[in-house]
């Protein structure tokens, strides 16, 4: 099976999971004790007629399964319902907020990968050296410290005390530089980086630490591989062994973990966006929860889960691309 077919196959395979997610969020949203209309109207004075109208509008007067099918029908057409609290289509709200979250999560990943892989490799190579010990301790701190706490500390130190970096928000590279009064694209990008730096580190530290630990273990294992012995016995330079022979094999588990950790990163985005006042999906989710904005909560949960599923599929494909042993099409 070719890569294209494999990709299609993986996406088709994800459909039941996505349906499952929609059912799950729908059930959760309907578990709430209390009258949904009252929650929706947040205690404003409403006449019985208004209640009926709202019920009819949201189909609350019909059985659960019918409402679910309606919801699904909407989903298929890209309609995720209507946010009562904000009086806007959920799809629009999500569309306007997904960019910052993607920017944040992807940059956190970029940061994690760029730092963790070289560090992990060096640590593996210099196993039990001081460098290894220091980097292991750093990684241990990384996996043990709450990201939001790191964020708070970073703000206090680098924004408030030192004043080096901005304390909140993001600069969106996809907006024009004029929006921010930047003189050109160069300044625009510099500013984007400056704004991104602290939240990226806060969110990326856990990923970095996790990946660094995995990378180190995998490299140690890979460096003990027979193929490394073979390469050495044939006079392959150590650098090539490290960068090519051992590295390529060690990356396979990393790819999988990068995919699965997306789950942690997306969850962490809620906290980081909160702490850094970033207008992404995470903060929208937090606000929707506070406001008990049903349709919005369901919509965001769906989208975040979908992002995770897609992320996993992408990493699966990458894995399949790199590891020739994967025979496309076999479910695991």
């Amino acid at each position, binding site marked *: 099976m070719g890569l294209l077919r494999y990709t299609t196959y993986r996406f088709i395979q994800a459909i039941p999971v996505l349906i499952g997610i929609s059912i799950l969020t729908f059930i959760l949203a309907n578990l709430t004790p*209390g*009258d949904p209309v*009252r*929650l929706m109207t*947040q*205690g*404003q*004075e409403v006449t019985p007629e208004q209640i009926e109208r709202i019920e009819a509008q949201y189909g609350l007067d019909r059985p659960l399964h019918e409402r679910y099918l309606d919801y699904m029908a909407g989903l298929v057409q890209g309609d995720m319902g209507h946010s009562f609290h*904000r*009086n806007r289509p959920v799809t629009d*709200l999500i569309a*306007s*907020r997904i960019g910052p979250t993607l920017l944040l999560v992807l940059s956190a990943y970029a940061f994690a990968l760029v730092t963790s892989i070289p560090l992990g490799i060096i640590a593996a190579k210099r196993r039990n050296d001081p460098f290894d010990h220091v980097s292991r301790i750093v990684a241990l701190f990384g996996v043990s410290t709450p990201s939001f706490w790191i964020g*708070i500390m970073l*703000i*206090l130190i680098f*924004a*408030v005390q030192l*004043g080096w970096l*901005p*304390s*909140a*928000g993001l600069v969106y590279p996809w907006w024009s530089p004029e*929006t921010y009064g930047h003189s050109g694209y160069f300044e625009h990008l510099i500013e984007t980086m400056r704004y991104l730096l602290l939240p990226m580190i806060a969110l990326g530290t856990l990923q970095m630490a996790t990946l660094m630990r995995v990378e180190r273990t995998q490299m140690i294992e890979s460096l003990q591989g027979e193929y490394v012995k073979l390469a050495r016995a044939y006079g392959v330079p150590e650098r090539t062994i490290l960068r090519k022979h051992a590295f390529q094999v060690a990356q396979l588990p990393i790819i999988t973990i990068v995919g699965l950790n997306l789950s942690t990163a997306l969850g962490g985005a809620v906290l980081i966006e*909160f*702490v*850094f*006042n970033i*207008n992404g999906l995470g903060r*929208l989710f937090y*606000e929707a*929860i*506070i*406001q*008990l904005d049903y349709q919005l909560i369901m919509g965001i949960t769906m989208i975040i889960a979908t992002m995770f599923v897609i992320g996993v599929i992408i990493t699966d494909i990458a894995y399949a691309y790199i590891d020739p042993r994967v025979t496309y099409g076999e479910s695991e």
Partner: protein
Amino acid sequence: MANNQNLWARRRILATGGAVSAATIAGCIGGNGDDDNGNGDDEVADISEYQHDGEEPDDQDRSDSLEFLQPADPDEDYDPVISFDSYSMQVANLVFDGLYEWDDELELEPKIADGMPDEEDDGETYIFDIQEGIEFHNGDELTASDVAHSFTAPVEEETQNAATYAMIESAEPIDDYSLEVTLEHPYGPFTMSTMAVPVVPEDVRTEDPEAFNTDPIGSGPFQFAEFQPGEYVELERWEDYWDEPMPYIQDIRFEAAPDDANRVAQVLAGDTDVIDTVPATEWDEVDGADGVRIHGSRSPSYMYLAFNCNEGETTDPDVRRAVAHSFSMQEFVNEHLGPAADPLSSPIPEVTDESGGWEFPMDEWEEEMPEYDPDQAQELLEEAGVPDDWEPRIIAPEGGPREALAERIGSRLSEIGYGADVQGMSFATLVDTYNTGNVDDYEMYLLGWTGGPDPDVYYYNLFHESQEGVGQGHFYEGQGDFHDNILNARESADQDERRDLYVDVTEEIIEYLPVLPAYSEHNTMAAREEVEDIHAHPSVSYNPRIVSDYQNTWIDE
């Protein structure tokens, strides 16, 4: 998250005539949490110390720009007919002029109107004259029919603001520059609450109401420049503004930062120019920080503890009195809110009393309030036959001073041998709970309300029986003509008569305590020192006022 409830601070203040929105009870404007400066004995700074005299710039030809951080996400409704939240209205109030506007003492001044109206038919008819030559941003002239439309549209379109204008029977232009407004019945609060209507251009608005809501046109000093939903709104100075003075500020950008800590961080770090609402928890830090000044004003906000008079132990006035004696409100407010609030002894904040010229016997009422006296509290509870294991459920908006107050009451009750079951709730849940009258849901609740210069806003919504189960959950039946007095005061235009009725009502409240007044939170902003001549206004939605006859904000580079 300390400031969660800000997310529900929906109702724009001072326009709450007959509004019966439970959302209004959010009413929270000020910060929250606890104060840093420790002991309750400490002298707490008065908010008037945070009003700074403005200076005039040397160079008057300015085009400064300002970034203003709001403490909550606005609903992004910028059409004042529709807009129902303070933070959208902060933007809208710069785009629109009111027929009348409040000054920084909450006194009403004509803006678009030419002088005060003629009142006829014992307060059932008002004739307004408006100034000639006022133009909207699109160049159309503002006429009486625009004002009439502004009065009647909320009711005709059944927007959430309808209650404010519900008593208006008709608003008819007499000519281009005068109109007649007829009420269904005399309505006491009309002058002080309803007349401050922002004026919208009828033609443009009715042509495409939805577009108008996100790209509004008014006659105010600023016009819409750019709007990025969920991100920011940018206003720019309208160079042909009809009134004096012309603002020094050229651009204003509004963004939201709901997390208190983050908002404070931004102003401390100099990442923004002004933040709305200084949390009481960070007051001293912000106050002491280099390069930042706090600007504050009293506000008509009113926080209270209400008792369930429908079911349970708290139906007995003695039990309510006992609870009031069991803790010290003064101590709590000083300790947790410090300069960010003043304790209250009646449902009417000081600024309401003063701006409306009511001259209520505030000092006397303060004397009559129950004092901290745990022995008496214990005695009262024992006499009332309250069971020893009494642990009343107290509900409050989670995070912030009201939950802290609930905890404080609980802890004090436990010191005299009882306890409390404190439940911090998300606002959405709270509004579904606090007005059931069910003893299992609550025996006490802590909420707030923001009104304006007219007491009706407080008494009618929070005490009148017609609002039971809507904006109030204490279900207090009242002695004698308690409820009639409230209604009569509402439907009278005679201020002396109204005053007497309100004094009776208030004294009964203090005696029977269906509700224990708690404190009034101030309106505050923190601005970088470079921001000159910016004054905090008592009304949240008037901040930042930028330009008025007493201020013209500028940036001292």
